[in-house]
């Protein structure tokens, strides 16, 4: 219930933070908003010896770059992103994905980088283990898996729930990472390992520094939907992010990017469905068929009381609707929504 003791240092800059993290080996953690880290520490699922606080580092507001891309500091609070005029006009899907995260207080505290680096979730994992599920599972460094007893130590089917990750993948964003060797940049989808044991490809002394979204191309339309039971506050049943590029005829799909979160160990692209859409005329039937294909292709993991069958049904319907919404956005605005 109370936290275990730890040391605390405030970093003056991201470089300073990286150095501090590097010095401690794997025993240090960065602290931004703390909305994922602190609950994990409360449950005693993680016991860092040192927290490196990023609180003193002021993020820049989202900015438009010369080439039309939008760059967003990873330390940006989600509330600032959902309310950012720049994002709402230029990258509305990103603003929308920030808008659906958690509850208001979580968005006021949580950051973009923190949202992407959140741990995967599993019912038997997300508890204190004082008298339930006491023996640690593979994810906690132990020797068993409670929901899937036949799984071996390299397999963890805990689910990655970030609402923003699918949006970034659909937008073909890049993620800028700062480490001891300097900066590197990866495409959003390469950031996620698809392995529940360690869902993001980030070294222990690396930090996400920024996210850059390319300018919306001609004929661009977007759609985003987070399925929940209650309409807010929750992690998703499924999170659907869609970006389409239509030809000038307003009907033929040039390119589709479909990313679905909260149903597997990382956000996944429905590549086969995307290929089926590319070059095709997007009528209702085509969208329905693609959505159906995608729901099978994604092969959702059952999680948090939702069965696989139901997640597939949910994805099939909402992906179709989200695709339709994306098409509508292209048509109603001409180019970027």
């Amino acid at each position, binding site marked *: *219930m*109370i936290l*275990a*003791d730890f040391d605390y240092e405030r970093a003056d800059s991201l470089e300073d933070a990286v150095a501090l993290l590097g010095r401690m080996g794997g025993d240090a953690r960065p602290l931004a908003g703390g909305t994922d880290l602190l609950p994990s520490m409360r449950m005693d699922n993680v016991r860092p010896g040192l927290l490196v606080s990023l609180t003193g580092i002021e993020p820049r507001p989202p900015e438009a770059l010369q080439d039309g891309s939008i760059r967003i500091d990873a330390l940006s609070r989600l509330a600032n992103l959902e309310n950012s005029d720049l994002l709402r006009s230029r990258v509305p899907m990103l603003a929308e994905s920030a808008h659906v995260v958690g509850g208001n207080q979580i968005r006021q505290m949580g950051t973009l980088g923190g949202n992407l680096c959140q741990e995967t979730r599993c*019912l*038997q994992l*997300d*508890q*204190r283990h*004082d*008298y*339930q*599920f*006491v023996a640690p599972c593979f994810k906690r460094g132990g020797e068993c898996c409670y929901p899937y007893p036949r799984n071996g130590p390299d397999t963890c089917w805990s689910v990655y729930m970030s609402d923003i990750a699918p949006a970034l993948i659909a937008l073909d964003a890049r993620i800028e990472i700062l480490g001891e060797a300097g900066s590197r940049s990866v495409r959003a989808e390469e950031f996620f390992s698809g392995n529940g044991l360690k869902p993001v490809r980030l070294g222990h002394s690396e930090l996400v520094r920024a996210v850059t979204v390319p300018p919306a191309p001609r004929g661009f339309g977007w759609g985003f939907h987070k399925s929940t*039971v*209650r*309409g*807010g*506050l*929750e*992690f998703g049943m499924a999170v659907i992010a869609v970006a389409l590029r239509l030809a000038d005829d307003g009907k033929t799909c040039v390119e589709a990017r479909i990313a679905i979160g909260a149903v597997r160990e990382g956000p996944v692209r429905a590549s086969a469905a995307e290929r089926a859409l590319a070059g095709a005329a997007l009528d209702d039937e085509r969208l329905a068929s693609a959505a159906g294909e995608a729901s099978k292709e994604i092969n959702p993991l059952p999680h*948090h*009381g*939702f*069965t696989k*069958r*139901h997640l597939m*049904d*949910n994805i099939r*319907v*909402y992906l179709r609707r989200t695709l339709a919404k994306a098409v509508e956005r292209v048509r109603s605005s001409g180019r970027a929504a």
Partner: protein
Amino acid sequence: MSELSYVGKSLRRKDGPDKVTGKAVYTQDVKLPNTLVGRILRSPHPHARILRIDTTRAKALPGVKAVITVEDTRGIRHGFVETPRYPPDQEVLARDKVVHVGEEIAAVAAVDHATAQAALALIEVDYESLPAVFDPEEAMKPGAPEIHPSHPKAPGNHSNIGGTTETEWGDVEKGFAESDYVREDRFECQLRTHGYLEPHVTLAHWESDKLNVWTSSMGVFVKRAKLAKVLDLPYSSVRIHKTYVGGTFGGKIDLYSHEYCASRLSMITGRPVQIVASREEIFSAYRHAQPLILEIKTGVKRDGTIVAQRIRAINNAGAYRGSGVVVIFLAWGFTMAPYRIPNLKYEGFSVYTNHTVRAPQRGHGAPKVRFAIESQLDMIAEAIGVDPITIRLRNARAPGEQLPNGDNTHRGGLIDCIALAAQKSDFLAKFGRDRKAPPKGSIRRGIGIGVSAYMGGTLIYPNGSAVIVKMNDDGSVVVLTGAIDIGQGSETVICQIVAEELGIGMDDIKVISSDTDTTPQDIGAWISGMTYVTGNAARQAAGNAREKLLQVASEKLGVPAENLVLKDKTVRHRLDPEVKMTYREVIAASVALHRGDTIIGEGFWRTMRDEPTHPSLATTKGRWTENYAFSAQVAEVEVDIETGEARLVKALTVHDCGFPINPALVKGQVDGQVSMALGHAFMEEVITKDGYTLNPNWLDYRMPTIHNMAISEDADVITEEYRVGQPYRTKEVGEGLISGILAAMGNAVYDATGVRLRATPFTAEKILNGLKAIEYEAKKARQGEAARV
């Protein structure tokens, strides 16, 4: 009705200002110097023998002041009910074996939280796992692991039945034979939980031979009795102090082990000990609601009149008897109260399983029973071609009707409730609309109705309430009442009653409440009797003071008492307002002329004065309540038939609350129950597997948020009057209004989709599966047609 000044008005809560400024002191806000932190060691097994417990290393840890196991207790058992048939069955700490995950085995008191936590880890316990059973129907079978070999058994080879309720009247088989239509259905309700925002907290301080306790509860007198008993102390040595309470809903009546442990640890160390249950402990080790299985067979005449009904109820009681034996009794009560059932056979079983013990939750069985009966009634109505309103009006009990158990409905307003609900909601116009003419798009609307009855007070310890109205010599008043405000507004309501009876303003009355030393006994806030029982006690106490004021004033003024009225802290002549005395003057006169009588009004009340005790839980013999509250509730829902997602759009509650003392508080109760019902209907479930709780937190146990609330309207059918000086029969509104609306939602989902669900919650998956099944049947039928053609 005479002109009322305070009663019947939506006055602001007395405790409101304290609550909005943060001044309200809840149990965890009480701070005593040198307080130790207490923590509990809990069982990691659902069923296991304890071979050995060794607390030596824990005791030796610096900073640990005491460690207790069952060996350090008096070995006295407690139980929710304590009758000859159902003697107390639970010790405060496990002895020899553990029977559910999270069961309390030991407790420590230490100087801080970290030390207490470390001490728990140093307690060595060796277990031998035993076969466990989790499903009540499995637990009832011969050969199932026996959880309590020493308990008295029901006849037959059923090892885990902790109690039964059986009763019948008429001849059900004959009734079914004479019925024009009979159907049988099985209904199940999920495990759900209370979700009170304030966690369980207890602070205990043993000082100068007196145990002072602050604890979050639903009744300080029953808490004192149970705690004193297990501690083997006289009641006068145990004081339960007043604290504000942050929500209970039935989950804080039982005696909890941590309450004993905090007390005992304080008695050993001589220091205050505080134990706070974490939210995770509450979800995984504390007491949830009673999930019921109901098998119902009903026979009706062609016009829908009920002829016979046979009900079998199975309760998953958890690992101790708890209140399981009460809910199976209540399930009978909630079955037979609203409708006439000429022939009834009822059997209820409360079954032990290796789960946490179950507790009452708001409605205590009524929501599940009414969901089942009202769903089936709609199915019957459809089959025989009668609409849902007509069939209910046909069967609803009338005012003044005698019930088979000897109770009477008195001024029950059920028929008026049904009629008004139907009219206000335009029920018959909306019913079946989307099914007959499906609109474009995927949204379907449906409307449903559900009916319920609830009791307003019954007999269970301490059986009666007393109130003291103490006049201050300036004419203001202090009211002493043992009633506990759990959020329902008891202090405000009592104040309004006293204000009305004594003709003084609300600001001139202070309420001192729920302290077992300084306030008189009270039935507590868990049998829906506060307004009726304690309210009448308050009325009587204020009336007692009023009589004395009138008598003294009469003497001093030389005017007969019947010509005097009380108004604005004066006693004045009814016709000549100049002939008057202030209360201050009257009280001074009373002290002077009546040998120091400072004017203290005393009042007490008990429901069913002519009954010695509550009915038999096992046979239902005996009168249950003299105060039935009825309701009819209508739900309008929307379902997305592509996804199965359903939501409550609008709730209408028509209730006969008797007379609303404070309409705003009544509305608050209605809204709160609609919210709780829609949670039960669409989103809440405690998920367990092999006795473990998988979702012990508020992210994964989905309680309604602000997004989920529906439009909630209510109307009351006022059947009683309030008159100064006269006893009144206000009914209850705090518990009975979850059931009808829950049932209504089930019926509304059917109306919207044609999907009849017999198990709550109505998840999107269940609704979607139901829609798929309907589509499949339709397709088969079409193929069959095509093949024939």
